[in-house]
């Protein structure tokens, strides 16, 4: 799985961090930072949840 984010769209809600704290963080302005661009399978469900709840549809996943 590859995690792709569109930082220009990010509204700094932090909902992704709440869903998958090992994979996402926020910078000082609250904008999304991807900690694990290719997360391990153990994180897949959390990452899918993060992509689904992002209120600005910022997170795109490439899944094989």
């Amino acid at each position, binding site marked *: 799985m590859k995690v792709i984010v569109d930082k220009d*769209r990010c*509204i*700094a*809600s*932090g*909902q992704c*961090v*709440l869903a998958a704290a090992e994979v996402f963080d*926020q*910078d*000082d*302005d*609250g904008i999304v930072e991807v900690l694990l661009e290719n997360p391990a399978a153990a994180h897949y469900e959390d990452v*899918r949840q993060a992509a*689904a*709840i992002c*209120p*600005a*549809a910022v997170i795109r996943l490439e899944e094989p």
Partner: protein
Amino acid sequence: MTGLRHVAVAGASAAGLAAADALRREGFDGRLTLIGAEDALPYDRPPLSKQILSGQWEPERVLLRSPEALEALQADFVLGTAATALDVGARKLTLSDGSVLGYDGLVIATGVRPRALPAGDELAGVCVLRTLDDALALRERLRAGPALVVVGAGFLGAEAAAVARGLGLDVTLVDPLATPMVRQLGPRVGAVVARLHEDHGVRLRLNTGVASLRGSGGRVTGVLLTDGSTVDADLVLVAVGSVPATEWLVTSGLALTDGVDCDAYCRAADGVVAAGDVASWPHPRLGRRIRVEHRTNAGEQGMAAAKTLLGKGEPFAPVPYFWSDQYDAKIHVHGTVPPDADLRIVDGDPGDGRFTALYGSGGRSTGALGWNMPKQGRLLRRHVVEGTAWATAGVTG
């Protein structure tokens, strides 16, 4: 899969699309139909009063999914067509094109529509902002540089006023309450919003409602306020809240006291769930029925409702979240702000345009706010989740 062969989703916006996505993610491989009253493919509404209205974004950027992602959903989209009636017993929807659609499971996600003023909306130059078409039409009108009166200083009115000032227009913001966004943010933070708008040159007319709209030759020319004064206007944006789009359900037998009344699992009847702006439910932790008109809830509740349809439901107990962008202020709120809520500044200073705060009610923390401090505001959310005792929440030293 619980005898579910066909799921119909009435409403093809954020909540409906989230429900459809969740159904597929949870393994539903039957027929899926999304019915949307608007012609457009599913799009996102929050940017309408921000980047779309300002002209910063073109309409393509608000689409919620790429064509490929929509294709992968393997759903039938019936757009430009509204659901007009529901027979819960027979599990049949009637659509505005006269056709009848049977279903095994139904997601109601028809959202809300703007509330109108009691009179005057037939005048040219009086508009509302809910759909992409509304936003594009309003943006076009703003280009002509009209004197704008925004009626209603809630979310939408405050954001639209900020955009219009950013475009250099003459803007008056009218509200019968004493403070803008007081229902969303409480009086103290609402006062910070008021100062923000005044600093940017918006004329605030608070504590006064609209008595009537003035017109000449079929065009609006001004707004008569209940305090007896008149404000000249070439353009009036009516942003006085919204009403759940449930007219089509009045003969369905569903309970409609506040939108579609659901149980804690987002279930409205056998085989029927509801999600998003249109749905109310008893929030397990708050202990009362709420209906939330915010973007994040549309997604979360869409997912929760989908799981209920599939027999995997859980009581829906989210921490509500919303944000608002006005000028350079980014306002984020996690949790709730009850009318009697107390406010405590935790970090920063409202006078500096950067602060975090907690809201408390009934002895517990209920909400966390970040004003240009989104991450720090989010970190305070734990007080809301844990219901930290108000006496000590966010008190340092």
